[in-house]
């Protein structure tokens, strides 16, 4: 018993120690530095995944493809720093008038960390591409794909069954409503598409390919880390209805056109495309404006004149102008002017759902307040001394 008590004491001492703070801060600084360097080769998304959204930095695969953890990554360092902060406050720092600045600062930091964790967990980013004089009721996630089975039998509304990217693996068998079964014969995370050169290919599955994908050849490509050249998944699937094989379909995100599946009495389509998020309302793009400074190509302003169309609450229907630095916040989503295409006739909006977006505002206010308070206090003390 005494041993356990001693042990616990030692652990608490370690967790509340300033040595651990310094080790944690230094590790964090090193991770930030490595992550920044990594972004040159890997792109921001993957570098952050490796350095911050994981437990360890690993070595290259050694014997048997096993990778050795070399250094704690963002998750461990973050947790250690938060624990350290909490323990230090309860163990060492007394709650006194003099220390109130430190308390505010550190409390603010904890909220900031937690907020970042929450937004990493719950924030969702996607894009909405709207052409002028048309409307959209969904956004797309360019980083994730899905295979959708669209049931258009009902003439008024389509029903969409989505298979998320996680399930899209070669060999996977997926049962869908309407007694449809998909068997994924081949799935490539990144692939190019070309016209097939020789029709009598050695691969027997080719012969069974139905629909417009018949004459295409999918060429597997290495994963791209360039943010400007997104990965383009492609798939070869076998479709069965009521246990009877209908044939193979070949799909690529490069050509995201629904292909018809011939089932009697139904209008079924299959498509591989970026993951979609549907909204209960739609946005109509009235006008996209791209202003430049006279005599230059430097843009001075981008803006999209949008009409919100919400059938559930018609009172909300209105015009609104989204421009850079002036997003639209609507029903828990925020729409930002992100980009444009096709000779300024298409506007691309970044759509973000982040329930914890206010946390950084509150926490950083607390930290700044705490720092100002603490340093002013020290300055006053220094004046007293001199």
């Amino acid at each position, binding site marked *: 018993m005494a041993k356990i008590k001693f042990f616990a004491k030692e652990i608490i001492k370690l967790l509340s120690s300033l040595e651990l703070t310094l080790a944690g*801060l230094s590790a*964090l600084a090193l991770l930030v530095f490595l992550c920044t360097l990594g972004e040159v080769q890997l792109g*921001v998304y993957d570098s*952050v995944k490796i350095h911050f959204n994981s437990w360890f930095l690993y070595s290259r695969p050694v014997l048997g493809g096993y990778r050795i953890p070399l250094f704690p990554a963002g998750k461990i360092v973050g947790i250690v720093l938060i624990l350290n902060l909490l323990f230090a406050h309860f163990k060492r720092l007394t709650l006194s008038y003099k220390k109130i600045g430190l308390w505010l600062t550190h409390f603010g930091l904890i909220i900031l960390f937690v*907020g970042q964790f929450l937004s990493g967990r719950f924030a969702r980013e996607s894009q909405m591409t709207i052409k002028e004089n048309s409307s959209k009721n969904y956004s797309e996630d360019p980083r994730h794909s899905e295979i959708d089975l669209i049931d258009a039998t009902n003439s008024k509304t389509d029903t969409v069954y989505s298979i998320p990217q996680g399930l899209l693996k070669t060999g996977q068998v997926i049962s869908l409503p309407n007694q449809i079964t998909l068997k994924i014969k081949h799935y490539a995370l990144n692939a190019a598409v070309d016209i097939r050169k020789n029709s009598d290919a050695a691969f027997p599955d080719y012969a069974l390919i139905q629909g417009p994908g018949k004459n295409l050849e999918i060429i597997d490509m290495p994963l791209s880390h360039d943010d400007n050249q997104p990965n383009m998944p492609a798939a070869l699937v076998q479709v069965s209805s009521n246990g009877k094989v209908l044939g193979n379909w070949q799909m690529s995100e490069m050509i995201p056109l629904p292909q018809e599946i011939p089932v009697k009495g139904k209008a079924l389509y299959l498509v591989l495309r970026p993951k979609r998020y549907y909204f209960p309302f739609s946005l109509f793009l009235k006008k996209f404006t791209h202003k430049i400074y006279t*005599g230059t190509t*430097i843009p001075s*302003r981008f803006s999209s004149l949008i009409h919100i169309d919400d059938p559930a609450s018609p009172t909300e229907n209105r015009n609104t102008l989204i421009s850079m630095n002036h997003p639209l916040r609507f029903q828990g989503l925020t729409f930002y002017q992100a980009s444009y295409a096709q000779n300024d006739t298409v506007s691309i909006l970044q759509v973000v759902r982040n329930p914890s977006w206010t946390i*950084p505002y509150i926490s*950083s206010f607390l930290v700044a307040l705490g720092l100002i308070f603490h340093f002013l206090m020290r300055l006053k003390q220094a004046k007293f001394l001199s």
Partner: protein
Amino acid sequence: MKKETMRGKNPISFNLLVLGTLTWAFFPFFPHSHSGVDLTLFSQLPVLQEGRIKPLSTVARSSLLILSHKEKVSTPGEELPASQWLLDLVSRPEIADMEKVFCIDNLDVLGFLNLPQTAQRYFSFNQIAPSWDRLEKKADAIEKVPAKSRSSFESALLEVEEQMVVYQRLKFSLEIPDLPDSLPNLLLKNPRAIAQNKGLQKELSDILTRSNFIDQSAYFWAIPISSGTSYAWISSGKAINQLLIQGTLSQPLLFYHRMEDARKNSDPAAFNSAADSYQKWLKKNLPSQYRWSRYEEIFNAVSPFWKGIVLYFLVFLSLAVSWVIWPERLTQLAMRLLVVAWSVHSFGILCRIVIQGRPPVTNLYSSAVFIGWVAVLLCWILERKFPKGFAAMTASIIGFTTLIIAHHLAMTGDTMEMMRAVLNSNFWLSTHVSSITIGYASTFVAGTLGILYILKGVLTPSLDKEAAKALVQMTYGIICFSLLFSFVGTVLGGIWADQSWGRFWGWDPKENGALLIVLWNAIILHARWGGFIRERGFMVMAVLGNVITSLSWFGVNMLGIGLHSYGWMDKAFFWLSIFILSQLAIAALGGLPLPYWKSKFQS
């Protein structure tokens, strides 16, 4: 008591010296021409370039910086001011084409252009022109290679091609094709006569082709044209087009025509009268553009940042000498000069704010200028509190260095460029960007104080206990200040990003750089509070703060566009490496065991 009397006894010569320097610092040195042409009248004329209305002198200076990395043209006889060179280029190109204004220092490029590979680095248009076709073809090929994988020869070659393009576009910008005297009259009075005359039609179509070409290649647009209530700016080519097609004559075109005729006939009096009439016309019709353009010309003529470089150097010199002789008098002089230098520095920043209508920091160039300004201000406050000359020394070093850096950054063109849509927000520029830059400035102050501590302590016996304590206290205060501003600046950046892209933190290299400064300052302070480092360790870590800040200020910009990009970035990379190595060396020196220090201040 003795000090008081000393202060009262400043000889007149001392005060005159300070007064003289002050006058020199703020005096606008307008460019002069030996040809009898009133160059100021020409330099002040407003034109539109890169979306901003600016005087011709700014166009001349910034384009000369692109071409020759200098603001003047050296000829065997004299130094030509930039405006004189521009005037020659647009009105007597045959003379300007012989001026050596292209700075090429890559030997392979010189070889490619069949130019002598000697110490000579400046070449004229006529020397490069024979290789133009080959140069253009090669440049087209290079442009297809991504910037990251270009060799230094390829980047240097591309730079020369771009310089040639700028040069030729400038040359055409004020060109007015010769119109047969009768043509404008006919157009205005009897357009039908042209339609009936085949010879005139041919002539008209030739001129239209030329004026279209001028319109497309113009580097700046010089002609304001009335559009209802206000004036719009067009190129001289377009103005000719409008005259020939719509029969609308814009007065400024006539004025420029008169100026050019006068130049061709070598008649300076006629030139001055035409320029003067145009100025009067501008004053009446575009009073605000006329006024702003004149103000900017005064700003150019004062050259506050150039004067700042000289003055900060003088401050450094007086302080350095004061450690050997006349300590009191020279320190006093240095402090006065520092105030003069900072005032002219402030004047420059203020002019930029007013002219641009933007907060002080809008790009890398202005960040350098602003870092220097903040650092000198902080040091001046420190020097009042700890009057030992350390802070003043720091001020002169940082002021001088940042303005030199700014001077080199100006070589990419006009430094008052228009802000892209996402940056087009004065609120965020003034809050986020300014606080980050204040953070940079303060870490540099702390780092430089650290350098003084180490160098003085290791190399000289002069660092006593009191001086060491003062240095440490100053550094401590500045690091706290820096932590606050870097943190606030970083967070404001996050909030700006949240407002414009919907994410508070995106791990962008620039954001990471700012975060590193915050973390480093936090590490220093926690290590000090925990007693893990003492005075010396604290100062060594402050010096290492310089490394982190320079990486975050400059290093990350190099990551983005690759290590082998444009010429100046290559050079910037070289200097950044030298700087970082020097800081590491100084930090290592600070780590020497105390017995090796010449100053024995620590028991």
